[in-house]
């Protein structure tokens, strides 16, 4: 047994990393300024709490530069936080007027912005948007809706989580067996996907025969696969859009493999 007295060290002043990002940049002389004892401004400097005639004024010691930094950044964050709060309040006040970006119907266009259509494709596009605008009305059905997702095709998009889209506007019966749908799309151009799928316990048995163009003369999209991920209990919709695929709206039916009965739809819009 060792008789020497046990050495006890004081608890460390901190128990986590110091991430003082506010000091990442320093101007000329600022490094010196952070040292409190040696870096005080010269006595002739008024900001060094020296009176204009050079007499130090100890009663009004300035904040150390570390304090100055903290106060400055805190002030800035207070300003932006207050601004965001005011913005949210203003948005809530405006929301009933249907201003885009200010409420739950942020993506919904007002009726005045509806696009006039003289082709079938435009009619369908307009219809889709109309249903999108009804999204808030179906908020009560959120739990019963099959989740839809839209994924912007991105270069090397690994690591980017799919972005959830507003739920399908179509009403559904309540079902706790709801499985989310994930869309994986490979497209050189902007593409928007809507998956309309009822709550289904038969997700592993779903299939689609591809997506057909609404415009005449466009080849169908055949590289479309529905894959059920049992571990995550979700359906993955994989779509590959050839670079030569003409822009437009494509749609297809999701069917049950066993009964061939229709279960839902997939709609894909390819921008120019």
């Amino acid at each position, binding site marked *: 047994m060792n008789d020497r007295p046990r050495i006890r060290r004081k608890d460390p002043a901190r128990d986590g990393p110091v991430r003082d990002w506010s000091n990442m940049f320093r101007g000329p002389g600022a490094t010196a300024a952070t040292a409190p004892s040696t870096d005080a401004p010269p006595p002739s400097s008024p900001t060094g709490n020296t009176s204009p005639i050079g007499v130090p004024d100890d009663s009004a010691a300035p904040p150390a530069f570390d304090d100055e930094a903290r106060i400055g950044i805190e002030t800035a964050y207070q300003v932006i936080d207050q*601004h965001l709060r005011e913005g949210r309040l203003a948005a809530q006040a405006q929301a009933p007027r249907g201003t885009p970006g200010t409420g739950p119907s942020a993506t919904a*266009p007002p009726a005045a912005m509806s696009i006039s259509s003289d082709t079938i494709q435009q009619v369908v596009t307009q219809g889709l*948007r109309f249903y999108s605008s009804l999204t808030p009305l179906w908020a009560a059905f959120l739990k019963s809706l099959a989740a839809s997702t839209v994924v912007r095709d991105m270069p090397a998009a690994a*690591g980017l989580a799919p972005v959830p889209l507003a739920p399908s506007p179509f009403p559904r019966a309540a079902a706790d067996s709801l499985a989310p749908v994930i869309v994986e799309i490979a497209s050189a151009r902007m593409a928007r996907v809507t998956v309309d799928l009822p709550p289904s316990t038969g997700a592993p048995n779903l299939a689609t025969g591809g997506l057909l163009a609404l415009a005449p003369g466009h080849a169908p999209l055949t590289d479309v696969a529905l894959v059920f991920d049992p571990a995550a209990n979700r359906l993955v919709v994989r779509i590959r859009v050839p670079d030569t695929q003409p822009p437009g709206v494509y749609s297809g039916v999701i069917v049950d493999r066993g009964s061939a009965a229709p279960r839902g739809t997939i709609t894909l819009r390819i921008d120019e």
Partner: protein
Amino acid sequence: MSVTSSLVPAILGEYGAMTRAALRDYLPAREPRRHLYDLVADYPLRGGKMMRPSLCIAAACAFGARPDEALGTAVSIELLHNALLIHDDIEDGSEQRRGRPTLHLEHGIPLALNAGDTLALVGLRPLLEHHERLGADLALRLACEAERMALISAEGQALELGWRHDNLIDLTDADYLCMVLKKTCWLATIFPLRAGALIGSRVAIDLDAFVRFGFFLGATFQIQDDLLNLVADRSYGKERDGDLWEGKRTLMLIRLFRESVPADRDRLAAILRFPRHERTGADVGWIRAQMDRYDCVEYARRFAHRLAGAALHEYSLAFANLPDSRDKRFLEEMVTWVVERN
């Protein structure tokens, strides 16, 4: 991240040239030229850093869009920026813009005002054309964002003009930041970033993160701009000490008033009470010397550097989930660039 970025000048040049080329298509080439459209085209064709349109395009591309998808918004931003510059120069009594006399000094206030109004309207055209390329939903959303930005910018300008009108000097750093947030940041950084993110993501993201990043980036930019006004050479493009002549409430002036002894404070208030044309070179020289004496310039420089640190922090949050790209790196390096530029 490099201390001196070569990527930022490269992308500013690339996206700036793209914007400038597209912008010419929106400048009316018809009569009346002499008293309207030549004036409308004047500021946009004088050049500029093209920071605002480049931020918009880069933000969109960082989300996977093509540059041309954000080009219309970028053009609109640059045109609206130039329209506001014409009016700002009148309101501030500025004498130089991008190395030349301001528009109202060359053509008189009535014609310059009318040109500014026209340029603002011209700047709406790219937004109105958006629905053809981006769809009605996104086009309307961008138009609403632009309207919001314009209103907030006007509020910020009113704040600053009101301070000068009422000769308010006893302001705080928070007052200054609030004014800069509205007057500068929304047009210079927040709106371009938000618009780019909207275009690139097709609306499917939370935009608050871009308000925060844009605020810290824009405030850093503005403080550095105010500092350059005191120390820059001719390449700066505006008259040196112009802010002192105009009595602009900068972070340096606010600190000077706060730190001054009563006698100096009274003298400062008296000088600022005069309209610009009644201030003398001696008055301006005295204010400038007092700023050095009271450490105002270095204080503002330190403040800007710390805001830049916060900007980097907010950048890391706003763009955390995006894959690495040239545009993403550009947005990060912009933070350093705004405090290093001269």
